[in-house]
């Protein structure tokens, strides 16, 4: 949608990017996170886990909107999505 002026609270309302943490020891390379991330933040790599699986890695974290779907869809409990709000929790 093309705006005719930039909203005054744009910075405040902008979605903070999330941070993706992947536990390499748990990942079994199923590819669900990479496939179902709506913004293609994750991708499968040729890095190997200690058990020999091709692990998922973050491709472009700036696109992450912290929707959390990768965390839900990972069958290995291997992904954690955090936002700066979590980190700045006083």
């Amino acid at each position, binding site marked *: 949608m093309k705006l005719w002026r930039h909203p005054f609270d744009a910075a405040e309302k902008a979605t903070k990017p999330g941070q993706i*943490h992947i536990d390499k020891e748990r990942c079994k390379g*199923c590819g669900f996170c990479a496939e179902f991330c709506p913004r293609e933040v994750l991708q499968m790599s040729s890095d190997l886990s200690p058990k020999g699986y091709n692990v998922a890695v973050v491709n472009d974290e700036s696109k992450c909107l912290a929707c959390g779907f990768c965390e*839900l869809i990972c069958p290995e409990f291997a992904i954690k999505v955090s936002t700066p709000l979590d980190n700045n929790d006083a």
Partner: protein
Amino acid sequence: MTANLNAEGRSTERYLRQDRLPHIWCSGCGIGIALDAFLRAIDRADIDPDKLSVVSGIGCSGRAAGYVKLDSFHTTHGRAIPFATGLLLGNPELNVVVFSGDGDLIAIGGNHLIHAARRNIDMTVICVNNFNYGMTGGQVGPTAPLDARTTTTPYGNFEPPFNLPYLASASGASYVARWTVLHARELERSMAEAMTKPGFSFIEVISPCPVVYGRMNKEPKGLDSMHYYQERSVIRDGTDPKEANIELNGPILVGKFVDIQRPTLWDNLRHVSNKAREKVRAQAKV
């Protein structure tokens, strides 16, 4: 920047026995997704984890009990539901969830399922349905669609499968839902609803089984099954469970099918117990 760090801090970590991870399920298997949804549902539904008991049977899905840091019981094949019944009747304050697979709950355990639904016992049964007996190598199960290939139906399955929502509903379940593991959010919500709702709740969770069932039925990778769910699942709450049949490569109807009120087993038992005590009191007065 933050890739490949430890996943500590996940909300479900405290319900997992970390010393037993990574779990034994195959790459692309959906049981982990179902289990994680269940663990999130515990907090969503505000359940007291001290009063929560998980009972499972034998099979891949049955291993879930071993990964949760709750009172958990890994029982014999098909008998999770009666064991759970005993727990509940022994201590009605417990919140009991049965987490097991299609072969365990529907074949050998089928009789117990229909009776528990009939009694409307206050428990939640999560049936992970991957259409075969995965742990023993992929033999046909009572939910495998007609013509499916399995290790014991090399020419195609010649038995029509159960329609699980129909079976549960017809037996008297007061809450029946079906989701695939792709519907992780809806699944979590459903599980939370089911655990707080009094009465017998049954949730069927369709899951990939890439190494055996999937490999033999054109879904060799977990992703293939997930794509199939993405393309062919249809969310239709309130559908008549009769219509929820699954055919090979056919559409999968998901959603909440049944949500009714019925007196639970304890409601009826309390009534009986009061009658008995009344009688004793009356006799004592004589």
